[in-house]
C-alpha cells in the first residue's frame, strides 16, 4: 500500500519539477524569444513557411484565426480519410487489409483530427502500417499542435495581446515542442524495449504446447508512442494501447508516458503566468488543479486497492482489483495512469477502464466532464480560464463592482461565450445522444455490461467524444454506423464549438479597456478566490453528469452481481 503511494507521490514530484522548465520554455517559444534550437530550427521553419505560403508575421483577427483552424483541420481530415479509403492499394500493408467501412474511416479521421483518438476498431485488424503510421501519426502532431496554438492565442488575448498567427503557432508547436520531445521520448522508449521495425509478425511455437503458435507483432510503435502521449493521443497501433507489453514494457516507460501526458497541459498554466506576469496566480491555479487531481487519484486508488468485494469473498481476503490490469503496473500505476489519461484527454490506457471499480469510473467520468484536471493539450488550460471567468462573474458582483478579470469587465458577450463553452456543450452533445441511444437500446447501443454499468458505458462513450478524450469503456460494440456517426457529431461539436468560443472570448477580452486595479478590485490571485473557483468548477462541472451518477454510478456499489439480472 505505502509503496504504491510513494510511486504516485514521486511521479507527481517529477511533474512539479518539469512544469516551470517546460512552461518557461514554451513562453519563450511563443514570445518569439531566443531558444536553444534556433540555429537549426529557424531555417527549417522558414522553409516550411515558404512552402506552405504562410506569412508568419501577419497577425490574425479572431475570425481569421478560427477560419484558419477550421480550414486546415478540414483539409487534414479529408487527407487522412482519403488515405484510409485507399489503404488497400497503398504500400506498407503486409497483412493485406482492405479499406475500412466509410463510417469507421470517417469516425477515425474526425476522432484523430480533433485530438480525441477515440477508436471504434482494433488497430491490428483494421488499419495498415501506412494508415497508422503515415496518417494517424501525422494527426497526433497536428491535432495536438492545433490545441497548443489555440491555447496560446487564448492566453495572448486574455492578457491583452493580439492573437498571433495560427500557422506560425502550429508550426512552432510542432518544430519546437512536440518534435524535440517526441524524438527524445522515442529514443528512450526503444532503448527500453519498445519495438521499432516494419517487419512482419513473428510466429513462435509456444513452450507448453508447440502445436499452438503465438503471433508476436513488433510493429513500429515508438514513433507513434512518444508523439502519442506528448501529442495527447491514444490510438497507438494496438487496440489495447499502453497495456500492451510492447507499448509499455516496464515501470520506467510507464513513468515516461505519465509525465509525457501531463507535462504540456500543466506547463501551459505556468506559461500563462509568464504571459500575465503573475506567476502567483499561475501557481495558485496550478495548486487548485493539482489538489483536485490528488483527490481524484486518492479516491480511485483506494477503490482499486480495496478490490471487488464480490471477488474478495471468493478469494477469502481483500486483494486489489486486477481485472484488466497488468502485474507490472499493479493498482497504483494503473490508477495514476487512468486518472491522468482521462484528465489530460490523452485517452491512452494502461489498464481497462471498463473493469475499474464504480468509484474509479465516476472519477474518470468527472475528469471528462470537467475537462480541466490538466485538460487536453492546450484546450484544457483555456477551459480552466473560462471557468475562472465564470467564477468571477458568479461571485464578482458581491464586491459591489461589475466583475472583471485581469482588469477587463465581464459582460454579456463573455458570459454568453463562457457559459456556452462550459455549461451547454456537454449537456447537448452527451446527454441528448445518450438519451436517444438508450431510448432504443436494442437497435442502437451494443452495450456489453448489463444494468447501470451499461448506462455508464453509453454516457462514457459520448463524454469521451465530446470532451475529446478518446478513452472508452471498450467492451461496448461501438463499430456500428450509429455509433460512428453520432459520436462524430459529438467529437466535432466538442472540439470546434469550444475553440471558436475561446478565440472569440480571447479577442473580445483583448479589445476591452483595462480597468486599473484598485483596493476595490476583486483580486483573482488569492487563495480565497482560487477556492471559490474550485467550487464553481466542481459544481458547474457536475451539473451535467450528476443525474447519470445518481442513476448509474452512485448506485453501482450497491449493485451486486447476484441481484443484477436487469
Amino acid at each position, binding site marked *: 500500500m505505502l509503496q504504491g503511494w*510513494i510511486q504516485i507521490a514521486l511521479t507527481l514530484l517529477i511533474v512539479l519539477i518539469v512544469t516551470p522548465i517546460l512552461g518557461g520554455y514554451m513562453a519563450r517559444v511563443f514570445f518569439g524569444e531566443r531558444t536553444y534550437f534556433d540555429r537549426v530550427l529557424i531555417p527549417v521553419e522558414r522553409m*516550411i513557411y515558404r*512552402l*506552405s*505560403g*504562410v506569412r508568419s508575421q501577419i497577425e490574425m483577427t479572431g475570425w481569421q484565426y478560427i477560419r484558419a483552424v477550421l*480550414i*486546415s483541420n478540414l*483539409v487534414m481530415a479529408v487527407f487522412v480519410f482519403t488515405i484510409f479509403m485507399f489503404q488497400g492499394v497503398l504500400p506498407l500493408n503486409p497483412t493485406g487489409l482492405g479499406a475500412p467501412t466509410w463510417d469507421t474511416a470517417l469516425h477515425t479521421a474526425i476522432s484523430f483530427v480533433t485530438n480525441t483518438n477515440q477508436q471504434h476498431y482494433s488497430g*491490428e485488424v483494421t488499419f495498415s502500417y501506412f494508415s497508422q503510421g*503515415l496518417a494517424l*501519426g501525422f494527426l497526433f*502532431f497536428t491535432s495536438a499542435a492545433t490545441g497548443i496554438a489555440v491555447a496560446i492565442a487564448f492566453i495572448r488575448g486574455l492578457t491583452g495581446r493580439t492573437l498571433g498567427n495560427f500557422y506560425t503557432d502550429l508550426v512552432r508547436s510542432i518544430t519546437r515542442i512536440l518534435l524535440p520531445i517526441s524524438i527524445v521520448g*522515442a*529514443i528512450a522508449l526503444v*532503448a*527500453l524495449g519498445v*519495438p*521499432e521495425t516494419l517487419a512482419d509478425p*513473428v510466429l513462435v511455437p*509456444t*513452450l*507448453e504446447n508447440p502445436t499452438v*503458435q*503465438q503471433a*508476436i507483432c*513488433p510493429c*513500429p510503435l515508438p*514513433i507513434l508512442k512518444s508523439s502519442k502521449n506528448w501529442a495527447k493521443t491514444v490510438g497507438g497501433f494496438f*487496440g*489495447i494501447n499502453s*497495456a*500492451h*507489453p*510492447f507499448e509499455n*514494457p516496464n*515501470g*520506467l516507460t510507464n513513468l515516461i508516458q505519465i509525465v509525457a501526458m501531463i507535462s504540456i497541459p500543466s506547463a501551459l498554466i505556468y506559461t500563462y503566468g509568464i504571459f500575465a506576469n503573475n506567476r502567483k496566480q499561475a501557481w495558485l491555479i496550478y495548486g487548485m488543479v493539482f489538489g483536485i487531481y490528488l483527490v481524484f487519484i486518492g479516491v480511485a486508488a483506494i477503490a482499486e486497492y480495496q478490490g*471487488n468485494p464480490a*471477488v474478495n469473498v*471468493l*478469494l477469502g481476503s481483500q*486483494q486489489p*482489483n*486486477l*481485472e*484488466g490490469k*497488468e502485474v*507490472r503496473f*499493479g493498482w*497504483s500505476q494503473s490508477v495514476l495512469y487512468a486518472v491522468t489519461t482521462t484528465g489530460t484527454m490523452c485517452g491512452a490506457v494502461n*489498464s*481497462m477502464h471498463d*473493469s475499474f471499480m464504480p468509484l474509479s469510473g465516476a472519477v474518470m467520468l468527472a475528469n471528462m466532464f470537467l475537462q480541466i484536471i490538466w485538460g487536453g493539450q492546450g484546450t484544457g488550460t483555456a477551459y480552466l480560464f473560462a471557468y475562472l471567468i465564470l467564477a468571477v462573474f458568479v461571485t464578482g458582483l458581491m464586491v459591489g463592482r461589475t466583475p472583471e478579470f485581469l482588469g477587463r469587465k465581464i459582460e454579456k458577450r463573455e458570459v454568453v461565450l463562457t457559459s456556452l463553452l462550459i455549461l451547454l456543450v456537454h449537456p447537448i452533445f452527451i446527454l441528448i445522444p445518450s438519451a436517444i441511444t438508450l431510448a432504443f437500446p436494442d437497435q442502437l447501443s451494443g452495450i*456489453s455490461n448489463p*444494468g447501470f454499468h451499461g448506462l455508464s458505458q453509453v454516457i462514457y462513450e459520448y463524454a469521451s467524444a465530446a470532451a475529446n478524450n478518446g478513452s472508452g469503456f471498450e*467492451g461496448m460494440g461501438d463499430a456500428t454506423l450509429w455509433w460512428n456517426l453520432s459520436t462524430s457529431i459529438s467529437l466535432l461539436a466538442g472540439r470546434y464549438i469550444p475553440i471558436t468560443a475561446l478565440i472569440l472570448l480571447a479577442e473580445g477580452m483583448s479589445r476591452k479597456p483595462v480597468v486599473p486595479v484598485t483596493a476595490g478590485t476583486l483580486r483573482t490571485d488569492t487563495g480565497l478566490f482560487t477556492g471559490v473557483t474550485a467550487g464553481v468548477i466542481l459544481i458547474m462541472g457536475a451539473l451535467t453528469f450528476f443525474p447519470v451518477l445518481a442513476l448509474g454510478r452512485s448506485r453501482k456499489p450497491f449493485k*451486486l*452481481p447476484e441481484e443484477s*439480472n436487469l
Partner: protein
Amino acid sequence: MSFAREASRAVRSTLVLWVLTAIIYPLAMIAFGQLVFPFQANGSIIQNAQGEAVGSILIGQPFTSDRYFNSRPSTTNYSTANPQEDEAGVLKTGVSGASNLAPSNPALLDRIQGKSDPDPEKAIEGDLPRLQQAGVKPTHDLIYTSGSSLDPHISLAGAAAQIDRIAKARGIQPNQLGGLIRQNTDGRFLGIFGEPGVNVLKLNLALDALNPVP
C-alpha cells in the same frame, strides 16, 4: 483574403507538415532503432540453444499444466492459435484484448467461480475451482485477466503459491524453485516505479533447463 488562398495555404501546410511528421520523423526513428537497439527494436525475441525463436521476453505465453508456472488467464489465449485451425486469423496480425467486464457484471463472477449448466457448451470451468483443484491458493493476478491479454508477469505471491504443485509434478525440491523465481523477477524501476513481476516465460524456460522434459 480570399477563400482560395486560405484553402491553398491549408493544403500546402498540411502536405509540408505531413512530410515532416509522418515521413521524415518516423523513418529517422526506425533507422535509429534498428542501428542502435536492434534487439529491442525487433521485439526482444529470445532464442533457444538451436537459434530458434521461442518467444519475446515482453510477451507472455499460455501455461496451464501442473508442470509449469501458470500464467494469468487471458481473453485471447496470449495471441495463440493452432495454425491448422486459425479461422479468426489470429496468426496473421496477432491480437490483444481485455475482458472489459465491469466489477458488477455477473459474467465476471461466472468466469472466476465457474458455472454449471446442463448444456456442456455453456458450462464454465472457472479459474478459482481450477486453481483450488491444483492445490494453489488463489491470488488476484491468477484469477483476473490482464489488460493486454499478453501480460508476461505473475505476482511474486502468485508464483510462490504454485511452488508446491510444480515441485510435486516435477519431483524437485521446492527451495530450488524459490531461487528460480528470484532470478526471473523483474523488479521496480529504481526500486520505486511499477510492481515487481515474475516473468513466466523466462521462469519456465529456466525451469525446463533445470529439469528437462523427459
